[in-house]
């Protein structure tokens, strides 16, 4: 299994490299970019950029300098905020976004697992119908709409929760954002678990387990869960991508200090350095997490592991 993990890491490296390369060339050559002369950038910013990107060197050298910088975590100076480098900005927001995303991921996945399992075990009875219906809501209504509605209902009309903002330690402010972020993910997980569990419960080997008199609880926890989780684990990779896009909007609407806010502001301001730097970071995180997920899948499915 170690060798499997190792091979997966190896195959991810080219993707990261490709991303960095593409980002570099976009940065350097795209219209409206910093080196285009198309826009009048503040003098200081231009100065920083010139210095950082060593514009008098041949382009290939520039490329390697850029890559070297990225690998050390240096994405260059921001194109809009004079005194900040991209990495400085990212490091302010990254821990928060990771915390938010991670918590929402855990909450959503667990809630989805429990709900899906309960629905599967009660197939075609009322808990199942209720779940199937409830789960549709976060999947149809876009998250930005849900966020706004939640703010209206729970923040303004009912006054139960704060409408937004965050100071370190004010965890109550995180309740709504985390739930809104977790809901679509949890809904998809619930659907997957339900379908997968129903299928597993109908297999021959579960019938064998029943014939051994093991009892419903033991069958569910020892025999049914592992096979049922396989499709769910496969989904977690793309699921993380969805969580990421969701966090962009949630951070914006609830005014939270994560990378998402910077990213969007950067996009609106056409701050290439920040946009691309954030992209590289996101891609890296997602690849890393996908890797972990793949390894988890291998552990769950002996057929993959032993090959």
């Amino acid at each position, binding site marked *: 299994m170690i060798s499997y993990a190792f091979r997966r890491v190896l195959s991810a490296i080219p993707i990261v490299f490709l991303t960095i390369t593409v980002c570099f060339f976009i940065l350097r050559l795209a219209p409206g970019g910093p080196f285009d002369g198309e826009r009048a950038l503040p003098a200081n910013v231009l100065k920083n950029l010139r210095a950082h990107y060593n514009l008098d060197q041949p382009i290939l050298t520039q490329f390697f300098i850029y890559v070297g910088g990225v690998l050390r975590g240096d994405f260059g100076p921001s194109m809009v905020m004079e005194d900040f480098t991209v990495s400085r900005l990212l490091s302010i927001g990254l821990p928060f976004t990771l915390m938010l995303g991670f918590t929402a991921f855990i909450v959503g996945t667990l809630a989805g697992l429990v709900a899906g399992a309960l629905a599967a075990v009660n197939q075609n009875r009322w808990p199942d119908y209720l779940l199937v219906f409830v789960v549709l809501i976060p999947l149809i209504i876009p998250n930005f709409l849900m966020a706004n509605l939640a703010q209206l209902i729970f923040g303004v009309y009912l006054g139960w929760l704060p409408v937004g903002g965050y100071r370190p330690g004010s965890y109550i402010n995180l309740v709504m954002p985390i739930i809104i972020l977790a809901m679509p993910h949890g809904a998809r997980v619930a659907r997957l678990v339900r379908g997968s569990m129903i299928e597993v419960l109908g297999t021959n080997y579960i019938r064998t387990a029943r*014939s*051994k*008199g093991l009892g419903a609880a033991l069958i569910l926890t020892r025999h049914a869960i*592992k096979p049922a989780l396989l499709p769910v684990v496969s989904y977690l990779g793309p699921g993380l991508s969805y969580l990421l896009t969701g966090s962009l909007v949630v951070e914006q609407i609830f005014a939270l200090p994560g990378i998402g806010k910077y990213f969007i502001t950067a996009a609106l301001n056409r701050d290439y350095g920040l946009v691309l730097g954030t992209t590289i970071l996101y891609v890296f995180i997602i690849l890393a997490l996908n890797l972990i997920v793949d390894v988890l899948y291998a552990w769950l499915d002996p*057929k993959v592991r032993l090959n």
Partner: protein
Amino acid sequence: MKQVLSVQDMSVTFALHNSEVHAVREMNFTLGEGETLAVVGESGSGKSQAFLAIMGLLARNGRTGGRAMMGDVNLIGMAPDQLDRYRGKDIAMIFQDPMTSLNPSLKVKTQLSEVLVKHRGFDRDKATKSAVEMLERVGIPEPVKRANAYPHQLSGGMRQRVMIAMALLCQPKILIADEPTTALDVTVQAQMLDLFKTLTDDFGTSLVLITHDLGVVAGVADRMMVMYGGRAVEKGGVDDLFYDPRHPYTLGLLHSTPHIAKRAARLDPIQGLPPSLEHLPKGCSFNPRCAFAFDRCLVERPPLGDAGDGREKACFYEGPMAYGQVA
């Protein structure tokens, strides 16, 4: 002989959207201690459903009626958690397809030892040790290695042996084997049947062998019950039925089994197809395919009645039947 299982008037019905299907009707039989009963029939005869019903393993839309007495306990109608006290411990079942009947994500030793842990209160190590001993007993070489393997690493024959070991670990009084050799190679089949015979003799287990293959019955079973269209149509000792069948369907089965119909110049399969359980023929279910049918057979259904010498048959025809007389 002491009875370990007595089934009385059992029926199995499945509810479909617009109708009901009676998979098993008016089934009565007894199983003695240490004896091997073969239950024979084509697919759709209800032979598997009857025993799945006894084990409480029917699909959601199935209903069971009647009684299945194991000792003083009626297994039919019992709640699943009650049944769990007996399943795997006093009565066990082996299924047809060894490739899909074992959990692919659990090691063999886990699937074996858990019955001992659950029903006998063994601790994990003791249970594993006993499991390995049983694996050896069912003829699996390098049992320790196999025990630590996953099912997909074993061949079909070995997986079936694991199933047998799993079923016998708690030394149940009754073992039901549903087409245990159908999915295996012919060479392996013979070994498997041998194994059944040895083990059931050793443990004193009563065996129900469900099969459509008469070749499997000879040499292993003491008595047999032939099923057709959800009902038992003939019952008796294996030798009696083989040499002197009293029901035309039994005759037909014998005649269409290769190594039994040695004398026939060619194989004669029974004409026609098994009936659809939703649209059974009027009168005797077998009459469309029967060479001996006469008017009464088309109108009235023959009840399962005494045919002398501990035999029963469900047929109105009383005349002689011999090979070559099948239509």
